[in-house]
């Protein structure tokens, strides 16, 4: 029998009231007098469970409800309805005790104090979270080792680059060694190298401490590198919750074959391949691409056809990029296929 889930969320909802702004000058004047309110269902009856040691990706377009969910999970916002049980706590009711067991990083925010040196922020956090000096030193050593913080510990936060700041923020969030880590877009705006640093670090703490991680992101490479499981949310509703592999398997309708022909004489013979709805797109000089539906034709069959017709110098078979799948999910067309 599996362990009881570390985080359990049931029918979680959050509604906001926003007022509708009318257009134009006259509308603006009327707004001052009478306001029409509109309920926004930022999160709508979301249910999921997360086991200890899991790393779960939480994705969705802007305004889908990701951050609102994180804010409720961290106890900043009180839900309109539903339940959260996280590490044995109801976040908004036992916030003080609860947050000592979690770490939070908001990618576009910082918990480090803007005008003061990074190390001062760490010292203050140590006091807030009652971390003993020994544990503090030990963890700082690990962070220095993995995140290479040493060089800018004495720099005020405002002078750090985004990547440096994010590393410091991660360290700050993990100073009290929490079993749960919430990350809201941890790699947003970072360059490739910085992203890689962050990902390596997350993998390391996940393996070393069995830290449970829930991260929201727009960057699907984050998910592919870090998470076995993803949850997709849009308009406040959970659209998919399951293994990344399953999502790919179910939704990967198309594959593509990219190939380079020997010379232009060979290239001239290509149109002969265009039957059964196969379409050849030129990519580069002598390089072509065929996107095909794998339910209609197998890879082996297609390759046989190509090789029979033209002389090929190089060949590459690729899955549909995951971005394309997610785009289809957001567009709503993939929903039926998943539940099927």
């Amino acid at each position, binding site marked *: 029998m599996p362990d009881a889930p570390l985080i359990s969320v049931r029918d979680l909802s959050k509604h906001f009231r926003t007022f509708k702004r009318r257009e134009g000058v006259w509308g603006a004047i009327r707004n001052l007098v009478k306001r029409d309110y509109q309920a926004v269902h930022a999160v709508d009856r979301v249910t999921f469970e997360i086991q200890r040691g899991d790393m779960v990706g939480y994705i969705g377009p802007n305004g889908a409800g990701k951050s609102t969910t994180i804010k409720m999970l*961290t106890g*900043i916002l009180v839900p309109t309805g539903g339940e959260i049980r996280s590490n044995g706590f109801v976040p908004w009711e036992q916030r*003080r005790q609860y947050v*000592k067991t979690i770490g*939070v990083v908001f990618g576009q925010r910082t918990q480090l*104090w*803007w005008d003061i040196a990074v190390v*001062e922020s760490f010292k*203050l956090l140590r006091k*807030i979270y009652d971390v003993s000096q020994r544990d503090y030193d030990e963890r700082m050593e690990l962070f220095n080792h993995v995140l290479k913080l040493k060089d800018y510990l004495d720099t005020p936060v405002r002078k750090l680059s985004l990547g440096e700041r994010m590393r410091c923020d991660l360290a700050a969030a993990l100073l009290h060694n929490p079993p749960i880590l919430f990350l809201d877009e941890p790699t947003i705006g970072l360059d490739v190298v910085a992203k890689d640093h962050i990902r390596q670090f997350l993998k390391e703490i996940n393996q070393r401490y069995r830290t449970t991680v829930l991260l929201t992101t727009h960057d699907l490479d984050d998910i592919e590198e870090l998470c076995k499981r993803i949850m997709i949310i849009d308009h406040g509703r959970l659209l998919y919750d399951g293994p990344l592999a399953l999502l790919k398997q179910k939704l990967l309708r198309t594959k593509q074959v990219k190939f380079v022909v020997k010379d232009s004489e060979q290239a001239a013979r290509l149109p002969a391949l265009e039957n059964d709805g196969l379409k050849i797109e030129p990519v580069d000089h002598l390089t072509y691409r065929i996107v095909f539906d794998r339910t209609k034709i197998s890879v082996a069959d297609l390759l046989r056809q190509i090789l029979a017709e033209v002389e090929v110098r190089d060949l590459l078979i690729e899955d549909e990029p995951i971005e394309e799948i997610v785009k289809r999910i957001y567009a709503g067309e993939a929903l039926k296929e998943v539940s099927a």
Partner: protein
Amino acid sequence: MNLKNIRVVYNKERMDMLRDRRTVFNMLLFPLIMFPIISIGFNRMENMFREKAKKEAAQIMVLGAAHAPELDARLRASGKFEILPLAADFKQQISDKKLRAAVEFSPGFEQALHAAGGVSPTLTLYFYRTELRSELAVRGLEELIGKYRTEIVQGRVVSQGMSAASLTPVITKEQNVASAEKVSGVRMGAIIPYFIIIFCLMGALHPAMDLTAGEKERGTLETILASAVSRGELVMGKFLLVLTTSLITAVISLISYSATLKFAPSAAARGVSGAAKDMTIHFSLQAVLMVFVMVLPLAVLFAATLVAISLMARSYKEAQSYTGPIMLAAIVPAIASILPGIELNPALALIPVLNVSLVSKELLSGSLPWASIAVVFISTSFYAAIALAIAVLQFQREEVLFRA
């Protein structure tokens, strides 16, 4: 609420604050240098203008000088006037501000004056009303002619065999019975509470906005809300820091003011209150301390109100527009207390700001109205408690913290 956590928040905000030059300037430097600069500056300026006016002799023209040789000689000898040669277009010259004024003696002026029982001779002054220097020149002329007139009258009285004293049958004398403290207290006392209140407010303003709306703007609010500090502790820590800066600013302004009074008393007195030049200023230490006790709940009221209001703003800039009316609402009653004739009474003792201002005025003039002091202190504390409660409640409201 946990005192340790409040202290952590407080220390963190203080450290943040002290790195910010704007705060340090507003809190420490500005109140420190404002009084000396205002008072000494005003004094300098006044002296400068006076010196300049003194040096500058007014250009006038004397028409019909031959009819009044004696007065003409006096005008020339006084040194206050520069007498220009006659010109027919003297009126035009006055209009053009080339000439300040002109005096015209009627024919046979001095002859008529010395002839017994004759008709009084006339003298015409030409000037340009509303032109300051022209009016000053005429005033100088009138003064000189007035003196001459008195001499003539005295000469006539004496020549009639009467004593010159008969011209002033009654002599009035004024004797001030109020103590020096009372006089200076009423004058200075009116203005000092005003300054303390303004500086209390000014000292609180920037930190209140920075610690709330500024925090939202920098995007650090979410993270601090997600930390192991309760919202109540967060408000208290922030509020206490705002209160501290407010009080520090007020104390520094008072010290600076006292020092200016001590080292350049006449300058300070004239510069700030327009009081008499030779006035001595002294308050008892007890009065000053009492004023501080009265200001304490007021500072709490200011700090809590500003925190509660600025938290609603999404950015520092927005907070500035929200706090504008608060500044006005506090400054108007503070100014009202300076107006003569507004005295502390049971109804006014309940009006926030005005009551503290008025009771401080009383205290500094040396009286100790215990009943009013109690009413003012209790009512202000009551308002302060309400404001603080509102500030704490604001921090519990999601629609305030996360306004979209």
